[in-house]
């Protein structure tokens, strides 16, 4: 499957499916609390399964910064 990371810069990865969203994030080393995962605009929960043909977006929710 194609994984499009927007964290926030755009980056693409290929992963073998099917996978549960929780496992997908683990493989990408992404903390689930900081992102939303979507497939064709549909928001997914951690127990949803994504297949080999899917394009999945991982969108970062973390913003701001004060140095």
């Amino acid at each position, binding site marked *: 499957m194609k994984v499009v990371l927007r964290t926030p810069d755009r980056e693409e990865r290929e992963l073998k499916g099917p996978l549960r969203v929780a496992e997908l994030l683990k493989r990408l080393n992404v*903390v689930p609390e900081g992102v939303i995962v979507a497939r064709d605009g549909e928001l997914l929960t951690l127990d949803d399964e994504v297949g080999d043909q899917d394009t999945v977006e991982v969108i970062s929710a973390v913003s701001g910064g004060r140095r």
Partner: protein
Amino acid sequence: MKCRVCGRKAAVEVRRQGQAFCPEHYLEWFEHQVERAIRRHRMLRKSDRVLVAVSGGKDSIALWEVLRRLGYATTGLHLQLGIGGYSQRALEATRRYAGERGLPLIVVDLREAYRLSIPELAELTRRRTCSVCGLTKRYVINRVAVEEGFDAVATGHNLDDEASVLLGNVLHWQTDALVRQGPVLPAKEKLAKRVKPLYLLTEREILAYTLLRRLPYQHEECPFSVGAKSLLYKEALNRIEAQSPGTKQAFLEQYLKRIEPVLQAGLPAGEVALKACERCGYPTTGEVCAFCKTWDQAYRWARKKRILPGESVFAPEPALRFAPERPN
């Protein structure tokens, strides 16, 4: 995972509450949370004129949308900071949101109002960008609110912002900053009331709301935020939250409920007295406020470096009127 209201397939999980919702019931839940926070802390009255500080990012756009849906009379305020294409795109997202809904928007371009951008201000004063940016934003937002007679300023600060600031202040035991943290800062002479209606919602929950409502927002981060300490604190808190849901909320809420009152009571008699700044008349603890001092210093260097003409003198009164734009 099923929606706890209707049993349909869930789209968003709120793990800190052990709940999940379908899109329709998530939006309902989210807006109800904001309404509840406003009521619980008496943030706003229905008759209030509210100035919403809008950067164009997801938090401030989501805040504006919820306040609009709850029926508040809102006006947006967007500051053009002059950070290249990033600032341009922030303005575009903000204008698009306001224009699509016919909402009044005040845009203050710092270069038009005060003749320098945030990057120039930071370079000329040799101070950190985020520090002079925060100082300038707070001052201008308050000035617009006071001069235009708004009842309150609403900002998009969320649970992650508040918990990470709290963590930073605790790690360095910054007691003076600790006692100023809270969802409502009451109005004082020439200081507008400030409220944070999203303070108990996480960034993830706000992003889910923004995506489900299909709101235009700027996803890109400020180029100056790279390596920010607050991002490190947010990441650390999110790692704890993943293992122990509800920790961020308990950390902030229990602090506000149990610890802040004790700290307040232990302060030496009363607060530090505020007086009017000699330059601009706005509240400060010293003779001249930090905003006037910083911009004065920037002007001195700008004259020396011939960025501004030799006769340029900093004036705290902006060189423009704070009028809302006509919606696009």
